[in-house]
């Protein structure tokens, strides 16, 4: 078998020989370790080694892709890519990034990755032990795992682009199952990066979230004032983030088409896409374009869409460094970097007082099905708490909340100071808690 470099160079040479104007490879590899424990025993232990090469060629102005995980037979791969380029009927230009300089980024050190396997296993076992000891109602673990690894990305092309990154990741997942009488509840919590060794806050959070689900019932159907907690708000924003992609706007798949410069949200809302955010910085996107900070919404006014090279050229603007990939083997598409609603000034307790009478929503599920980024509509199963006169009365479950994302964005009264980010990687979404003047609740 050929080495990666031999295979890549052979692909470039063959592509140019066969008449391609440019050729580019997007190569990924990773080396990961994962351990899952239950009852003080390892129940799952995994060693993960991935590699793959995605070839993109420019042939008669069109791009075609082919991906492989075996570095042999470059002729077949190039032939597939050219064949796929010939199939393209869209007439938009397909630019590729050439040689360029990248901004310096500072990545926080992550010593967890360098722990020995034994130390990582001990960490998972200790997490389980301490969770079980935290509260008498913790009956068992639904999930308790430690994952670490190194993921490398290499992008190069015949225009001289050469971009390389190496990401060291780690995360812990905890899901204690609590029992009280006949009722059982579970809550998943995650912690990413070097802070995961200090897991007390993770345990506290997962147990508090599980306890909140006991003795819950539905509320009457009707309109309610809503305080959407930061994590649930982030899940909702994540589901609708594609409305801001120029790709979707240009294809008539976003209601934000033609809205640049218009007020699309309450003045309390500012949305940023910040590739330099301290906990998940990146120097370039999935096309090798140097990172830039983008203000997407400023005080409620839509300022920019998210662009890759192709969609930027079509609109006559610069790429916002938001190229993404649909998996290692997929085509270039759009992905946010660290995409978030900027935090406000009020604490969660102050927002609760401002809510007065209404519902705190702490969890939303079924986001892959119950929301539609084209229509903006959502109707989602939710959990939370009933609030009267600024005080929590009881827990609530078996309800749905429904609305339209754009209408909801106009009716946000305040944002909290509690900005929180979801999982790292491409498309990391952050949100503070949001005080919303009205959503429809279905229950009893």
């Amino acid at each position, binding site marked *: 078998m050929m080495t990666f470099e031999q295979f890549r160079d052979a692909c470039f040479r063959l592509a140019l020989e066969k008449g391609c104007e440019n050729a580019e490879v997007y190569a990924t590899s990773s080396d990961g370790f994962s351990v899952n424990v239950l009852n003080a025993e*390892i129940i*799952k*232990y*995994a*060693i993960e*080694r991935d*590699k793959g090469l995605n070839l993109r060629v420019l042939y008669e102005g069109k791009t*075609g*892709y*082919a991906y*492989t*995980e*075996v570095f042999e037979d470059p002729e077949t791969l190039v032939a*597939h*890519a050219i*064949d*796929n*380029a*010939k*199939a*393209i*009927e*869209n*007439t938009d230009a397909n630019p590729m990034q050439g040689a360029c300089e990248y901004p310096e980024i500072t990545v926080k050190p992550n010593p967890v990755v360098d722990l020995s*396997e034994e130390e990582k296993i001990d960490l998972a076992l200790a997490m389980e032990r301490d969770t079980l000891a935290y509260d008498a109602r913790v009956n068992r673990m*639904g999930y308790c795992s430690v994952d670490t690894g190194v993921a490398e990305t290499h992008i190069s092309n015949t225009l001289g682009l050469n971009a390389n990154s190496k990401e060291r990741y780690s995360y812990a997942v905890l899901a204690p*199952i609590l029992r009280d009488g006949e009722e*059982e*509840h*579970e809550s998943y919590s995650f912690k990413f990066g070097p802070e995961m060794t200090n897991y007390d806050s993770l345990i506290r959070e997962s147990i508090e979230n599980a306890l909140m689900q006991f003795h819950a019932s*539905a509320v009457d*159907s009707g309109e309610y004032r809503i305080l959407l907690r930061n994590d649930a708000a982030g899940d909702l924003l994540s589901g609708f983030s594609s409305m801001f992609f120029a790709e979707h706007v240009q*294809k*008539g*798949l976003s*209601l934000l088409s033609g809205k640049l410069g218009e007020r699309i949200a309450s003045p309390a809302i500012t949305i940023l896409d910040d590739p330099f955010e301290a906990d998940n910085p990146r120097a370039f996107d999935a096309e090798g374009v140097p990172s830039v900070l983008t203000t997407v919404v400023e005080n409620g006014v839509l300022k920019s869409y998210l662009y890759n090279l192709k969609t930027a050229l079509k609109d006559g603007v610069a790429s916002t460094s938001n190229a993404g990939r649909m998996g290692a*083997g997929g*085509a270039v598409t759009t992905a946010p970097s660290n995409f978030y609603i900027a935090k406000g000034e009020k604490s969660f307790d102050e927002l609760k007082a401002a809510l007065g009478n209404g519902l705190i929503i702490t969890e939303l*599920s*079924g986001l*892959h*099905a*119950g929301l*539609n980024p*084209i*229509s*903006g*509509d959502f*109707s*989602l*199963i939710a959990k939370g708490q009933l609030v009267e006169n600024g005080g929590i009365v009881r827990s609530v*479950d*078996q*309800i*749905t*909340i*429904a609305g339209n994302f754009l209408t909801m964005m106009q009716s946000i009264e305040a944002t909290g100071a509690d900005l929180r980010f979801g999982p790292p990687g491409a498309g990391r979404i952050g949100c503070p808690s949001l005080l919303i003047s009205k*959503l*429809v609740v*279905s229950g009893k």
Partner: protein
Amino acid sequence: MIKSSIVNAVLDEALKTGGDFSELYLQDSEVNSVRMIDGKVEDANYQRKVGAGVRVLKGTRSAYAYTADTSEAALIACAKAAASALKGTKEFEAKKICVDRIGRSWAKIPFSEIDNAKRIALMRAGTNAAKAYSDEITQVVANYMDCDHRTWIYNSEGVHAEDRRPRVRTAIQAVAMANGEAQTGICSPGYGMGFEMYGEKVNIEDVGREAAKTAVTMLHAPECPAGKVPVMIDGGFGGVILHEACVHGLEATSVGRGNSVFCGKLGQQIASPIVNAVDDGTLPGEWGSMHFDDEGNPAQCNRLIENGILKTYLVDILGSRLMNHPVTGSGRRQNYTFAPTSRMTNTFFAPGKDDEEEMLRTMGDGLFAAKMGGGSVNPLTGEFNFAVGEGYWVKDGKILCPVRGATLIGKGAEVLMKIDRIGKNMWMAPGMCGSLSGSIPTNVGQPRIRVSEIVVGGKGGAL
């Protein structure tokens, strides 16, 4: 794909630290995909995924290692990595391969005989049919996929199983817009067949029209009222209610660790007596079918519920050790990067005896869910949710008007007991199911059914 001497060396290496079972899984798959937007091909892609995974079991402990490198040295290293989870000394030898199970592709027209021109012609026909349905259709997105998925499984009990699973699917999504509002409709048939699906099973123009019809209908529909009402769910993808509300809770993944509302319920009434439910992986050419599962066991027809009584769980090899329950041919995984676990195949409510018109006439006020979207479930509590793609409000037993934005929620154990009608004609529809071992193709199905009450989430007022 690989020499038997290498297989034995890998299986033996994996047992060196005290494991009692080892397994080598090899995969070689080719996927072609084409995306068409607004009648123009936007992307075309070819992906070849090749890799191997080695699993070691010792009792109910499991270790898994995988690699994208299938050379002999890499496979031995992979076996060593999996074995390193255990710290013991060798207790078992791998048996020589003595059972051969070969599953042959159902494809009559393999995808290697198809070129992009044929794929594109289909998508164009589907797109044109969607656009021709109405002037209100403003955009059409068509996604074509064909996949030739080949697997080789060897284990230390002497089993060798190979399977070759063709899959083909096109999804057409239509968007209808007017007055600053947008609604969508999607239709996405798929089968475990070759390219002959087009013609034998699927008329692509019908697919385009169906997607367009939903989008246009929903554009003119008021918001669905919120509340707890009777719901009639049509056949086909309506079977997602069985998938989410019940059968995820019958998988060893949750039952084996005591984390399902259906634990300890074998032989007990868990559903209304008119309910019969089946998971059948053997149906030739269906989206969720296979000859052998991803642990090398033959696919089975599993009768899950008979007359409301729970008859079996869905169990993989690890699950059978945890539960002392025979395996059910349910070990599945997305690809070599996942260890297998218990999963569904083609899962459906069997046909019942009820009249579809009577069901509507006697339901009073409620919702008719003609097309369902996806959903999810928490197996521990049985709390499920799913979206309604095309719904109609029913008043006094008659369809009043279409309604948009509905979601159904409830608890599986409760809703199964509230099924009061099951129609006579069952059909299935394909989906992708996500769980611990990745995203896999599964069919859901049912005849038209009725549930006496269920919470309908929407944002509309009374109609």
